């Protein structure tokens, strides 16, 4: 069957595509929208990563704070390390019979490093005096390292130490240790702080 001339023209008209300008305009709109979407998703993913990092640091800092507080509570304080750096603390933990040290601002990487001096468990010198002698005379070495409680993300730290002194001494007191750990985004840093009142009543003479 032959199509009439009029019908053939109508059929061709119905099958007409887009003009070049329409295609270019559509592509431009699509590109702009896709760039906006990519930008939003990129920003969102970056924020997600930062939030996850902050959450991990927060959890690590809380864990470290609780471990330190638990150990300090049953200890007598020696003081800082032999190098005298103020963000370090050495103490003898009676509950574990261990000479322990913490470096709250481990060199360069914003970590919190724990040390434990390796006295032999059978050693008769395993006491506060031996711990004091060691901590005062020696720099804590890699051999003493237990590991990082927080591996990175700490931007600042402070420790205030009040050592216990026996009742026979002038100005006898029960000591306490306050420490704070700062971490988080530069725009909104967070500081975790706690204080431990020492329970070394036997050392004090109570």
């Amino acid at each position: 069957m032959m199509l009439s001339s009029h019908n053939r023209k109508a059929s061709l008209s119905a099958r007409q595509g887009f003009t070049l300008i329409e295609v270019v305009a559509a592509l431009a709109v699509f590109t702009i929208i896709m760039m906006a979407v990519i930008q939003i998703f990129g920003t969102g993913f970056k924020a997600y990563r930062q939030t996850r990092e902050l959450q991990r640091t927060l959890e690590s800092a809380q864990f470290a704070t609780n471990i330190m507080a638990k150990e300090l509570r049953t200890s007598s304080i020696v003081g800082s390390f032999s190098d005298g750096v103020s963000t370090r603390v050495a103490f003898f933990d009676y509950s574990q019979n261990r000479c322990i040290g913490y470096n709250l601002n481990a060199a360069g990487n914003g970590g919190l490093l724990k040390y434990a001096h390796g006295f032999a468990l059978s050693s008769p010198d395993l006491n506060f005096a031996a711990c004091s002698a060691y901590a005062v005379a020696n720099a804590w070495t890699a051999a003493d390292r237990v590991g990082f409680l927080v591996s990175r993300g700490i931007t600042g730290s402070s420790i205030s130490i009040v050592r216990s002194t026996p009742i026979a001494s002038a100005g006898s007191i029960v000591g306490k240790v306050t420490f704070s750990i700062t971490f988080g985004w530069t725009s909104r840093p967070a500081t975790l702080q706690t204080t431990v009142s020492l329970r070394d009543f036997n050392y004090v003479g109570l």
Partner: protein
Amino acid sequence: MGEAILAGAVLTIGMFSVIGLITFSYRTTGDTQDLIIASELAQEGVELVRNVRDNNLVYREKNKAGACASSTAGLCDPFNGFDSGGNIRCSIDYDGPFDCANPNPALQLTGGFYQHTGTTGRYYRVIKTISSGLGIDTRYRVQSFVTWQDPGNNLNPAWCTTFNKCVYTELFLTAWK
């Protein structure tokens, strides 16, 4: 035309959902952060009060043959400086006295530590003490409240919930170690 509007609507809803999720995640992390910091500060409050009691005990022990031989009051009282009523707000700094006369709830970061140095701050801490018993049986309930909003006069265990941006902890202290 209808298809274009539909596509645009789906795209817009999708983008707003993503933005909403990011905002919610950010806010939740901030709330968790405040909660953890406040918990540690509340625990610090009771530890500092315990330290005051322990040092009062040391003073009594050191002077048991002298000033405290016949007296259990003043400096010889293990709870010297405590408020017995439970209605007075007290504050204590990590390096300061237990202050129930002129307490300052606001905590500010000063020199690396939270201290009661200003009148406003992100965190507020109030300590209340309530006594019971007499003599050697005297004991104090110590409550430490920390909020991350201005607490007004609302600080009590019933009000202090995470919904109200508040946490608290308590301990009992006796007249012996």
